[in-house]
């Protein structure tokens, strides 16, 4: 999917391309290949320059939240990538549904700057809506049965014992994400990662060996260890002494940060660091609406159950 934007004194155009296409993006599904193409007015790519990228999460919904409410409306990613033949790209795993705001600032080799904002819509997984529907149907059924039991028809007085049990919630394997505050990272000469906490971006810094005298091609990836998914990656980005970016870890789990720096004529410099992200409990303002919604489903079932029994008795 290509989205284009033009403007600025130099009449540059910025195109955004995602793979999968924009309408097919789902949260925590697969990492999305995002690429930017910057061209001049005549269509030729801008050979040199850099793009500053800022990605902001969707804002909170009106009533029900997503499963990561702390992430909503926060800054997710902030980095600078060099343009190579007018292109810059990275991979990213969108954590929640909603409309993401991508701000792109292009600075060409001539110093001319141009900025443009893009909106990246991410729809919720249909499977989750299906599970939510089934869960609500189950709550409604519980309420329906209780409503029929609680409704006593005088001609046929029945014992109104509470027969329902609420132990039907099936348990599945829980996640093994640690909740420790410690940043359980192993010392590394190339990677510096500040303490990671959900709710705010974490600074990741890569430093070249011995001060980085030569330009290196840096590949950096962040992997969610529990889900075995790459949540962010850049490939072969030319960097000098060091490179840094701000990344917002969306949940309190363990991540692995890998970096490979290739310098011509030298062995690749590999670094790996484990990051135990400190989780943040979601606020009650995000939890209460969902609980109210579920209780309302049961109440609706109660009402319908009573109505059905009353109707049948007539």
């Amino acid at each position: 999917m290509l989205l284009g934007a033009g403007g600025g004194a130099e009449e540059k155009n910025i195109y955004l391309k995602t793979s999968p296409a924009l309408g097919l993006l789902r949260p925590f599904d697969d990492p999305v290949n995002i690429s930017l193409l910057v061209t001049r007015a005549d269509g030729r790519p801008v050979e040199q320059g850099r793009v500053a990228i800022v990605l902001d999460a969707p804002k909170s919904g009106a009533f029900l939240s997503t499963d990561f409410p702390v992430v909503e409306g926060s800054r997710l990613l902030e980095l600078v990538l060099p343009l190579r033949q007018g292109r810059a790209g990275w991979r990213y795993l969108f954590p929640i549904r909603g409309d993401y705001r991508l701000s792109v600032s292009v600075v060409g080799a001539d110093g001319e700057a141009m900025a443009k904002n893009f909106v990246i819509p991410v729809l919720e997984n249909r499977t989750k809506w299906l599970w939510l529907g089934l869960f609500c149907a189950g709550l409604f059924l519980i309420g329906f049965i209780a409503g029929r039991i609680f409704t006593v028809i005088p001609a046929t007085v029945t014992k109104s014992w509470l027969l329902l049990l609420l132990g039907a919630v099936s348990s599945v394997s829980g996640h093994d994400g640690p909740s420790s505050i410690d940043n359980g990272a192993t010392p590394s000469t190339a990677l510096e990662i500040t303490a990671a906490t959900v709710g705010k971006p974490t600074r990741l810094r890569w430093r070249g060996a011995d001060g980085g005298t030569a330009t290196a091609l840096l590949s950096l990836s962040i992997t969610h260890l529990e889900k075995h998914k790459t949540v962010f990656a850049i490939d072969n980005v030319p960097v000098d002494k060091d490179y840094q970016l701000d990344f917002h870890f969306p949940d309190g789990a363990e991540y692995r940060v890998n970096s490979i720096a290739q310098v011509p004529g030298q062995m690749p410099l590999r670094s790996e660091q484990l990051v135990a992200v400190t989780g943040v409990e979601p606020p009650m303002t995000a939890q209460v609406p969902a609980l109210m919604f579920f209780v309302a489903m049961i109440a609706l079932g109660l009402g319908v159950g009573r109505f059905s029994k009353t109707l049948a008795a007539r």
Partner: protein
Amino acid sequence: MERTLVVWLGLSLSERISFLIKSGIFLSLCGATLFVALASSYPVVHDTLHNVRHALAVVPCH
């Protein structure tokens, strides 16, 4: 249940009031159960139902 209340309060409850009382108690129990299952931070409960929370799309988790 409502008979216990009737005896205790010395009142005569209509069927509608009885239904409302039973429904209120029932909804309270359901709400408390849902809170423990889907919103509490007890490690055992949270870890057991972590995937369920995320699977429901609208239940917040950390």
